[in-house]
């Protein structure tokens, strides 16, 4: 294993953790948004928080798609494959939350892999 392999493995580990945290964080994000909607006009702090999150989420979906490619091409070590597979039901279950928040959905390719891994026939695709 050369230095390049070590760097790639470390990045995959990091990206898996980052994406998992992002997906698991969505219910809390939705709760905060609903609380904000019940209040008065959106403050500048909340506006900045919302727009920054939207941009960072876009990047998270790109990161998830690169993980999907690494998974499909056999680049992941066995523990990383298991971690990715554990993410698949979460990816599918988060679909309604992603829609409610107006966020970018996972790519169709990612949803297809998630459906196959999770053994689900029905998946909602939304923009």
């Amino acid at each position, binding site marked *: 294993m050369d230095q390049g392999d070590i760097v790639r493995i*470390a990045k995959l580990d990091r990206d898996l*953790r980052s994406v998992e945290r992002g997906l698991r*964080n969505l219910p809390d994000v939705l709760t905060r948004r609903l609380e904000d909607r019940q209040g008065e006009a959106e403050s*500048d702090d909340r*506006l900045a*928080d919302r727009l920054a999150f939207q941009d960072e989420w876009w990047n998270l979906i790109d990161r998830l798609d*690169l993980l999907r490619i690494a998974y499909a091409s056999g680049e992941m070590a066995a523990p990383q494959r298991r971690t990715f597979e554990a993410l698949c039901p979460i990816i599918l279950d988060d679909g309604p939350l992603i829609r409610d928040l107006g966020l*970018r959905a996972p790519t169709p390719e990612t949803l297809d892999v998630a459906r196959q891994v999770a053994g689900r026939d029905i998946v909602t695709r939304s923009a």
Partner: protein
Amino acid sequence: MSEQADWILAIVARLAVTSSVSNDPGDVSPSELRRLCVHLARSVLVTPRRAWADGSVAGHRHPERGQLMHLHDPISVQAAKYVKHVLDDGEWDADTTSLSDYLAELSEVVLDSQSDLYLEQDAGHWKLTFGRYSAVEAEDEGEPYTVVSFIPAKGLWLSGFRPERGRSYVASRGVVHDGRWIRVTS
């Protein structure tokens, strides 16, 4: 809104009426653009603004005060973005990048007259995004590309990070409108 907002609004409004042709700042002069960049880098970027610890921040130690942070703890947006993008996502080397290093690099990107500059509407607000490859001599897609975004008229810094897809991230997002490159390096 601060008394500085009028000139910022005027510059952004004039940038906004430029054509969609790349590298066209319209009738905004280089010195006006420079003034805006200096304001964003030296004032907006570093002015503490309130944020809240989310799932990527909770569990880390505060980069300045050292205490363990919990979900929804108040935190400055600068510290929150540093924890997320440097300590948590590893977009920078966490061992060698301090909070001030992180902010200094973002500031450099904004102040560099060679940085890419993209203008777009997001949620009804004009947003400016600066972008630059970290190594000028190696502008290939493998090099980290740093983006820094603002809502200038509101004096809001949004975030600074290194997108996975480099420069192509900037103009690829479908949630924004009227996007155009004000300045882009070839």
